[in-house]
């Protein structure tokens, strides 16, 4: 094709129809879609993570109610209570401040637990096991989906919950000691 024909070709391209009316009215389908409230994708994995966090929250509340008002410390230590490593899906690490607080509280845990009654201590241990199991499960899920932001958030929440339980145990036993001292 010559340059002239090439130019004509380009001119012809510019004459092609740019606006075309659809053969049917497409609005009803659009209207239906925009009138329907958007549903969030709810996968079994997310449902599981949400259920774990819900369970942690509920059990922590039970712990709080049980341990609250505890007056008589009991000298018994649970040596098997271990903490999950802070892998955060194998790709992230928790902040140094968070780790320091967690390590400090974990070191004090046995001493603090020894001041609680067997029932309360068992309750606390059970809750911490639940939290640690949740951390383990979410970490495993994150290993498969490292970029899942919801799972990352759930993991962070689980770590916070763990820290919260540890602080609560520490605070409550400190109150007990203060009352006993008086």
């Amino acid at each position, binding site marked *: *094709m010559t340059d002239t*024909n*090439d130019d*004509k*070709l*380009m*001119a*012809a*391209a*510019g*004459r*092609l*129809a*740019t*606006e*075309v*009316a*659809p*053969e*049917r009215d*497409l*609005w009803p*389908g*659009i*209207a239906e*879609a*925009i*009138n329907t409230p958007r549903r969030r994708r709810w996968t079994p994995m997310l449902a599981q993570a949400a259920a774990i966090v819900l369970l942690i929250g509920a059990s922590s509340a039970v712990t709080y109610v049980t341990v609250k008002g505890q007056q008589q410390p009991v000298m018994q230590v649970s040596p098997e209570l271990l903490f999950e490593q802070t892998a955060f899906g194998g790709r992230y690490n928790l902040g140094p401040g968070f780790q320091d607080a967690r390590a400090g509280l974990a070191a004090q845990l046995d001493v603090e637990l020894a001041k609680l009654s067997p029932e309360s201590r068992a309750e606390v241990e059970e809750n911490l096991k639940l939290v640690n199991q949740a951390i383990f499960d979410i970490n495993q899920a994150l290993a498969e989906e490292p970029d899942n932001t919801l799972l990352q958030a759930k993991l962070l929440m689980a770590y916070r919950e763990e820290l919260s339980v540890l602080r609560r145990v520490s605070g409550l036993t400190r109150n007990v000691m203060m009352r006993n001292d008086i």
Partner: protein
Amino acid sequence: MAALLTAKCSDYSRDMVITARDTVAGEAGWIEQAQRSDRQAFESLYRMHVDKVYGLCLRMTGNVSEAEDCTQDAFIQAWNKIGMFRGDSAFATWLHRIAVNTVLGRFRSNKREQDRIQAVSDTETNSFVADDTGELRDLSDAINRLPSGARHVFLLHAVYGYSHDETGSMLGIATGTSKAQYHRARRLLCQQLDDHGYEP
């Protein structure tokens, strides 16, 4: 008689200006209302722009049912994103961008689906853009036979008049790539049309 004609022409011209102003004002108002979740205003925007969006989707997919789906998806996307429209470009251009993304997204999402679209498209040759007549129909068919990369660039640049910068931005490719694909498209079109003895 001349005075009457002048008056009529003047009236006609004034009406045109008023209509154009009303359209622009109407569009701006509808956008503002749609940004406040007014579905009726959004329907007005749809009515105003559906032919532009559908035309582009039809050219890019080469298939009526895919073009219809893409058009619907594009307007649903536009509804979801209309709060982000700041008027940096014309609303039609903004819609075109969304439509291009929608079509490309469908192409990328499933290779099998893409093959299916192409297969359906092949069976619908010569029938997909009824608005193209005579020799333009041949050109339209030749464009539809181009490889997708070259076809998309050619459509946006030569048919829709977007610059290579805009075309590259819409398709997610570099400006240089857009230029290269455009020249490739021209060469392939010339070959195809020469083979068919096409005289533009």
